[in-house]
């Protein structure tokens, strides 16, 4: 849509020209402003304030603007304290795939803060959440990744959770995963994908 002469342009909203102070108290107030543009600025600047994690995580539950939500998720990732990580984990329960995926991508970059929560996430009653937890493991650089994945394929009774773990295990698995892969094949003998992917994983780790 063409802008009319004299109408504010996007450049007028550039952060460098903001008039509002950027102290914590003002930013927290602005996070609740009616103008999504102002909430966006506040969410971004609050990334520098670890104590703002509670406010950001709370706003996640009420925010309606998708771009503000994405920035809140990004800021929680920058803060990365326990409150922030719990807020990000809450995003795994959201209906909107875009926000869920954004949170997953942020969580992948936080191996140490995420690790204490992984055991509980992998036992969530909702199989979709367990799948998202496995998605987080995809590039989580943590020494327990293979152990978590082996635990999933040994114990989880949902075929799609196991299949997602299997996809990743076929890339990162070591000979330690051999018995678990063979047990998985036996647990799901009628599932062609499990048979295919487990065979592939066994070949890749060299223990056919």
């Amino acid at each position, binding site marked *: 849509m063409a802008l009319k002469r004299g109408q504010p342009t996007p450049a007028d909203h550039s952060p460098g020209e903001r008039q509002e102070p950027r102290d914590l108290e003002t930013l927290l107030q602005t996070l609740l402003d009616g103008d999504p543009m102002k909430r966006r600025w506040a969410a971004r600047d609050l990334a520098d304030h670890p104590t703002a994690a509670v406010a950001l995580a709370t706003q996640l539950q009420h925010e309606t603007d998708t771009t503000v939500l994405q920035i809140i998720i990004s800021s929680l990732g920058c803060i990365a304290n326990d409150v922030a990580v719990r807020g990000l984990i809450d995003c795994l329960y959201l209906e909107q795939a875009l926000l869920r995926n954004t949170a997953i991508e942020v969580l992948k970059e936080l191996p140490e803060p995420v690790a204490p929560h992984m055991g509980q996430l992998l036992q969530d009653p909702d199989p979709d959440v367990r799948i998202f937890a496995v998605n987080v493991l995809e590039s989580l650089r943590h020494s327990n990744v293979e152990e978590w994945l082996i635990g999933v394929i040994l114990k989880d009774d949902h075929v799609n959770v196991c299949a997602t773990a299997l996809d990743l295990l076929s890339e990162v698995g070591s000979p330690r995963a051999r018995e678990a892969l063979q047990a998985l094949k036996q647990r799901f003998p009628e599932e062609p*994908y499990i048979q295919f992917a487990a065979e592939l994983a066994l070949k890749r780790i060299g223990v056919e």
Partner: protein
Amino acid sequence: MKRILVIDDAATVRLYHREILEQAGFAVTEAINGLEALEKLEADGPFDLYLVDINMPKLDGYGFLKALREKDIPQAPAIMISTESSPRDREAALVAGANLYIIKPIRPEQLLPQVRGLLGEGHPS
């Protein structure tokens, strides 16, 4: 030979779909996310059918389908494949432009009749 673009961030899933589809006589191209799929679309021209995962980094299945449907190209059929079974996910996929929504795990005998049906080579089961 009909060309199918398989879009999934999991290498094993792409390989599984490739084997099923190639054995059935289709030519398969792979993309690891929606963004790469759009690049393949630009480079290789439109495909006859798209097999699309939902959850992928960079550009997910919904984003890819929206972009695909906004392009001025023949409206080739798209099958969205997901682990998620809620009616809301199915509705979102259809709104984004999917012709069909299939829940994993995929079995060849389930997938191939749907693919052939959408390509006008038979009736979807």
